[in-house]
Each structure stands twice: as C-alpha cells, then as structure tokens.
C-alpha cells in the first residue's frame, strides 16, 4: 500500500512538472533579409492560436504601429541589444485600440516595422526575435524564432545626383 501511494505521488509530481502548453506559437519572417540603410526594416509576425479556445483581446497600436502584445529584441552583430528609438513628445502620441478574436488553430500575420521601434540605420547584421507577452513577468513571454537582417550602406549619389 505504501509503495502504491509513493508511485501515485511520483506520477502526480511528474505531471505537475510538465510545462503548460503555450497558447500561441510565434513565428517571425523577413520579406527582405538585406535592406539599404535608411529604409524601413519590417518583419511579418505570425501568431497561431495553439490553445483549445478562441482568444479575444484588445490590442493597442501607437504611432509606431507595433502590436502591444508583442515585444521585440533586436541585437547587433556583436550580440548587443540595440536601443529603442526616441521620438519627440511621446506624451502626445495618439493611437488606437483594435479588438480581435484569434480562433483555435488560426494564424494571424501582422506586418511590423521594427525600424520604427529600433534604430537600424547603421549598416551591419541584426538579429530580431519576437516575444508574445503573456503576463507581467517577461520570463513567461512566448519566444519566436530568430531572423537575421543585414543592413547595407547607402550607395552615395553620383555627380548627377543618381545612385550608381
């Protein structure tokens, strides 16, 4: 009897240790992996509802057009985090909230301009990873894959004012 009790306890502990299934799968993709310095750098972020229920939520989009439920981590070629861009008068920033329902199994793909949030004007390689926020604790965020974007130097204009 004692052995059976220990066995059931172990099974129960093992089950409780299993991580909960993340409600979303996050995939990031780049349209253009090489962009010229100064151009917009955008990624397509796909959220797939992997839970067993529809997810209805309101999402804020401020001036940068970034989905408030997403957090971006952009690193340069040395692996250092790239600082966020600053804009004048952030206290005046308008925005909007849009409500959506992502059905079970559905994938929503959003075009997100990363360069509106981070300064990617310097030529070099950058990696972008996206996190879907889950709670107040960033450790709970759901990670995406990592994509690499190369920013190439801007071609100087020739004497006629045209690029080569």
């Amino acid at each position, binding site marked *: 009897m004692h052995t059976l009790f220990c066995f059931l306890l172990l099974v129960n502990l093992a089950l409780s240790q299993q991580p909960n299934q993340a409600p979303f799968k996050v995939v990031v993709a780049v349209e253009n992996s090489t962009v010229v310095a100064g151009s917009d750098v*955008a990624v397509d972020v796909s959220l797939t509802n992997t839970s067993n229920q529809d997810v209805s*939520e*309101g*999402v*804020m*989009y*401020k*001036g940068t*057009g970034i989905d*408030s*439920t997403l957090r971006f981590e952009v690193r340069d070629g040395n692996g250092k985090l790239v600082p966020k861009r600053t*804009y004048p*008068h952030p*206290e*005046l*920033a*308008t*925005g*909007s*909230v*849009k*409500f*959506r*329902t992502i059905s079970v199994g559905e994938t*929503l*793909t*959003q*075009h997100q301009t990363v360069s509106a949030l981070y300064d990617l004007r310097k030529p070099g390689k950058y990696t972008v990873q996206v996190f*879907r*926020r*889950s*709670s*107040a604790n960033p450790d709970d965020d759901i990670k995406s894959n990592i994509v690499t974007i190369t920013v190439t130097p801007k071609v100087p204009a020739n004497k006629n004012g045209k690029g080569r």
Partner: protein
Amino acid sequence: MNRLRRVTASTILALLVFAIWSSVTHSRDERIRALMAADQSSRGINDPTTGLSGPTPQGQKPDPGRMSDEEKLVRDVYARLMRYQSAAVDELSAKTGKEAQPEDYLVFELRGIHSGPIQEIYARPLAELLTPRDGEILSIKPDRRRKGKELPHASYEAKWSPAGSVGRQSAGATVANMLLQTGSRFANVTQYTSYQVTARLNGKERTYRALVLYRPNSIGKPTYRTEAERTSKLAGVEIVDPVITEMTAVLTDESPRIRTPWEKYSKTTLYQAVVRSINTAMEAGQPLIPADAPIGYLPGDDVTPSDADTLALLANPACRDLLILRDGNDITGTTQNVVVGERISLSLETNPEGETPTSIQWTIGGNRVANYVANNSNGTVTQLQNLTSETLTYYWVTSGQQIEVSLTATIFGTSVTKYAYFNVTKPDPNAPSVTLPTSGQLNISMIGDCSGSTPGPNMVFGSISGPNPGCTYSGLAGIAFTPPTTSTPPGSFFFVQLVTGDTVLYSNATSTMTCTATNTPGLDGQYPYQGRIGQLVNDAPFHPLLGNRTSSSRNFAATMYLMWQSNTSGSIPVPMGSVAWGFSGSTTQTNGTWSAPSGSGSNQPFVAASGAGSFPTWTGTVVTANNNCH
C-alpha cells in the same frame, strides 16, 4: 571480359525494348507518331514475347530487318485508332477548357503477334486465340466534320461500357467450329494473325486476344497503287476484336484527323492544304493511305500549306477572319462569364495566320482598370489606356451583363470588327454591416502603455481600459465593420482603412497647440486592415490628455473600404464600396478632472464602388498627429 561485354549489351538491349514499350503510354498525337516511327525502325522479327511459333504467312521466313506485313497492318490500325481518339480528347478539352489528363487517352499495347495459314489453328481451342466478348468493352463513336462536300475529318470518342448480352462461346469450341458457325462470312479465310491487346483508358485496363482473318489476295506486302486496289485488298481483311467490334471499320477509315480546335483549324491554310491534297489524290485515283505509309499514318499528315492554299483561303471572304482570343482561346462572338477583379487577357489572331494587323483598336465596355497593386507601402491604380496593342490585360471593377468588347483591325487590306461579350458578376451581398458599439459616444479612459508608466487620461472614440496582463485591453471600440458572408462567387472579403484627416488641439489660458496628421489619406496600420481576411474589424482611436492643458479637442476622419478578391488565377482585389466615418469632440479639465467629452462619432452610408475612382490609393502609412505639432 567478353562475357561482361555480352551482359552489358544484353542489359542495354533489354532497357531499349522496355523503353519502347513504356513509351506506348504517351498518347498525344505527336508522341504516337514519333513512337510509331521509332517502333517501326527498331522492331525486327515477330515479337519475342509471343507464345506462338510457326512459319510466317505463305511460307516466308521473317526478314530480320523489318516487321512482317501482317504485324504492320495490326499495329497500324490500332495506332490510327489511338490518334483518332486523341483528336477527340483534345477537341473536348479545347471546348470545355478543362485540361486533358494522361488517362483520358486510349493506349494500346500489342504483343504476341503471330501470323500463319488458317489450317494450323483449326483444331486450336477458340478461347486460346479469341477472348470471349464479356465484361467491359470499349465503345467507339466516330465524329465526322466537314465544311463542304469534301472528305470529312474524323475523331473517335471511346468509352468503357458493359458488353451486354451476347452469344457465348461454347466451352471447348475450336477455331474451325467458329468459322463454320459464321457461314459464308469466313468461308474463304486462308490466313490469320493472332495477337494480344492491352487497352488502357480512364484508369481501366483490359488484356485480351484478338484475330485478323484474311481472305485470298488480301495478305502480303501492300503493293496497291490506286485507291480501288487498296479498297479491294482491305475488303478481304476482317479484324475480330472482342472488345472493340468496330476495328474493321477503323481499318478502312481514310479520314484525316480533326485538329483542335476544329472551328479555328477549319479556317486555316493547313485545313485548306489537307483538303486540296486529298481531293488531288482522289481525282487521280491514288490511295489516300499509300502502300508504304508509316504505321499510324492518316491522310493529311504530311501536308504543308502552300501559297496556293493561302490564296484559295483568301478568295473565300468567310475565311478572312479576325479572332478575339482570351488566354489563347477563341471567344469571338461568344459571351463569357467572369467576376469582378478576374484577370482578362485578350489578344488577337488573324486567319490565315501570319498576317500583321494594323490600325488595331480595342473598345472595352464597363468599368475596368489595367491593374491595381496594393501593399503596406502603396495602393496604386493603373488606368487602362493603351487600347491599340495586339494584347490587352485588364480587370473589371463593377458588374454588368453583356458588356461589349470590340476589336477593329485592318487585315488583308480590309477593316474588320469583331465582338465578344462578358457577363461580369460580383458577390451578393456585398456591403458591410457597420455598428457604433458606444452609440457614437466619446469617453475619457485611463489608459497606460506597457512601459510601466502610470495610466493617464485619454479621450477615446469608444471605451477602453488597460493594460491587462499581456498588454491587452478591454472595452468597446467606437466603430466596427463586419464583412458580408457569401461564398459565391469564390473569393475573400477584407478591409482597408485610410485616415483622411486628424487634428488634435491642446489649449490652456495662453496658447493652443495644434497637431495634425500628415501624409493623408494614408494607410491606417497595415494592408489588409488588422491583417484580417473575412473577419470583423474595428477601431477605437484615442489621444492623450495633458495635465498642463485646460482643454483638448479632436477631429478625426477615415474611410473604410470593403475589398473583395476572387479566387481566380491572377485576380486583383477590387472595392465593393466604402464607408466614411469620423468623430469630433472636446473635453475640458477642471482641477485635474477631464469632463465627459462633447461631440460624437458617426458613419456615412455605404457607397457602392462605381469605377476606377473607387479604389483606395495611398503612398505610405498616415503620419500620426503627434509628429506635427505647432
């Protein structure tokens, strides 16, 4: 070493034989002809797969350099039926626009071909040489077409059908029994050819044995020089095929094959040349299928048009033609059913071909555009302007019945005008439902972002609170749009929103700061709006209220477009219509508290798309008001 060479040579030979057999399955006409040529040149004595043996007819030994005359006759008639049937399949495909599949083509494999004097099989059980007619058989039905009194062109439709009730071969019956039972029909048969047929069509296959029976003077190398001699020789040949009873009729058929599409072919110089060559041969009494013709040959195969054919064609006004083609298919004088946004690719063709038309002028009725390209950066309409080129690609924006397309061009020195007609449909219903969840009311909501800052007051079109864990928000949007639900015609609805104006004012006792959105009309967010296809979308714009200001107001205007894109290949999205909406309101601050906003939001009625001007167009996203304050 020699042994190795022998083994290698044998392997290569086996592979070659296999390749020849396997290529039989390629049944398009050109493939059949190529196969027959290769088959004829490569095949030597009687087929090695035969289980029968014995001397060749009339005691001749087989010539290792070529196949026997009897084998050639058998292969020839089945090859010709394959070509006639291919013509029928291709014509049906051209008529329906449905691409033919490999299994639509009738394919034969012939094996175990053996010929000899009839006496040698008198005592053989009939079932060994002739499969009983039962199960499924192949019904073949000729389709003959002609323009005048000339020899008709032909194709043969083939399909599997039950054999039905037929007299059964009695068990143990011999060939002699069969010949006796048929009375005078086979009374003077002197020779025979026995062979195995494998017929494949529409995924079904049947393997059986058949016979060719020869009466006197009908066997041996064909040496006829006149049509009368050929007819006389073939009159003594009877093909006893238990699955295709019409094989003897196919043997005597001398029709050229129908070429696809018939309506177009029958007005070409090639048709003229085929008819001319047949008429010339018939008038001279020459055989239409020469004695030395290759296997599978049909009259007209080796004909090429001459200048005389072109002149003859031009002499007939009905043959000087201008055709309107859509995706390469003749649609002249027809009515086509299409949907809005479907790609329409037109071109022209003259008959006889090769004439360069001049003074081309297309006239396209209805509302149409040359193109519409939309993405997160741009939405651009290209008007249909060049209507004088040989090819034309465009899209209809609105629906209509019997929309006329005309083409005028000068060919052979004459101005000719041709017409085609289009019924253009669009989804129905095609208007969104629009709701104002807060009845148009503006509210003051305490909203924060996810940077950890303290939530502050904002004037919202709608009613919002948050952030919640995960940086989501709760409440009601100011306006919501639901697309129609219909799957006919197949396609998808989605929305595109352009911000057409946005001005925010902040005032205190001494000054007013004005912030105005720029790059209007600009794309709001992304294309399609909210990244959603076929789903409800909404909006709840807000602007922050500053503690050092005593009042704030906002005028916001946007237009939501309902788009629809057909599932047809190469389609563009087209507008179904649009809804203009906006809000205007103001609030004042007293001792840190902002008053309930005055003003409200509303929407205009849905305006159905009326043409190229109804497309949403933009260059980049709207630049929000806070970037332009003064």
